[in-house]
């Protein structure tokens, strides 16, 4: 596909998702309390969208991932929350 074909097929969908994200962040701003670590990670991912390096999707997925190499002692719960709970910022 050329860029025009990609645009015809996917621009409206991308526009819609960007506006949904903006609306979600507005909703978060209006809400009481503290935002948890997942929002910090999500915001830290946004500059990736604007850089000129390839593999934006993989780099965002990597940033949200557990970077530690070893198995954990025991699985206390079964679910995943979307961002590694140890995330403390771009350098973690």
């Amino acid at each position: 596909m050329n860029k025009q074909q990609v645009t015809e097929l996917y621009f409206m969908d991308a526009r819609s998702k960007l506006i949904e994200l903006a609306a979600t962040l507005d909703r978060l701003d209006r809400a009481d309390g503290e935002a948890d670590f997942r929002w910090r990670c999500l915001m830290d991912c946004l500059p990736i969208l604007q850089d000129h390096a390839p593999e934006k999707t993989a780099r965002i997925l990597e940033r949200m991932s557990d970077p530690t190499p070893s198995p954990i002692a025991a699985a206390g719960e079964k679910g995943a929350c979307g961002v590694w709970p140890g995330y403390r910022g771009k350098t973690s």
Partner: protein
Amino acid sequence: MHYIEPHAHMVSRTTDDYERLHLAGCRVVCEPAFWAGFDRSSADGFHDYFEQITRFEPKRASTYGIAHYAWICLNPKEAEDLSLAREVLSMIPAFLERPTVLGIGEIGLNKNSNNELAVFHEHLTLATRHQQLVLVHTPHLEDKRKGTQLILDAIREHPDLAPERVLIDHVEEHTVRLALDRGHWAGITLYPTSKCSVARAIDLLDVYGHERLWLNSACDWGVSDPLAVPQAMREMRRRGRTEKDISTITWHNPARFLSQSPRFHLPE
């Protein structure tokens, strides 16, 4: 066009889904053993489940013109209790003799714990001993990257297991290359939010080609769509892919991998 659904948890789906799958062109479904949404209280619960996916589901599927195959294992979400896990593992060889069982799966990791890894190794030993194909579940979301690496390193410790007889499932952009570079097959799962969208899945095919890749819906009791594969086929057409390309990914590739089991036969 006919296609193979290589990963579907049909015990969670209605007969309406079988009918819709057939209408959409599905002629084969493969059902890996998985978590029921709650922990089973005893090995007997697993026994009954294995009976269901090796006796009842093939019969139910055939009513709708679909061939049904199964994979047998204890899923990683129930691997923390090692004594229960080993009791279940001891039952598996008998089920591997069933005529529609293709191998061991979906084994793997969930939270990447020591016990999950120990049970994964024991499944791999079982697969090697019984010369079975292996279908591997990789963890969800933030646990996927680390879990995939642990899984690949664990498989490497079983040199008698040929890489091309192992499929690493639920790959995404940050894990697909890891699996393919080790010589394994890789499955791309089409989920509305938590795995690959249809568009991203076709992106992966654009980047990595068609070799050793397949698409699946992994439809189950959660947010999932049994018709995700035909939706991906439509997306490929929208992008100008040829019918041959589509058939390679949704029929010939799964058939190639699955045909390594002598029990797998394409429908007439």
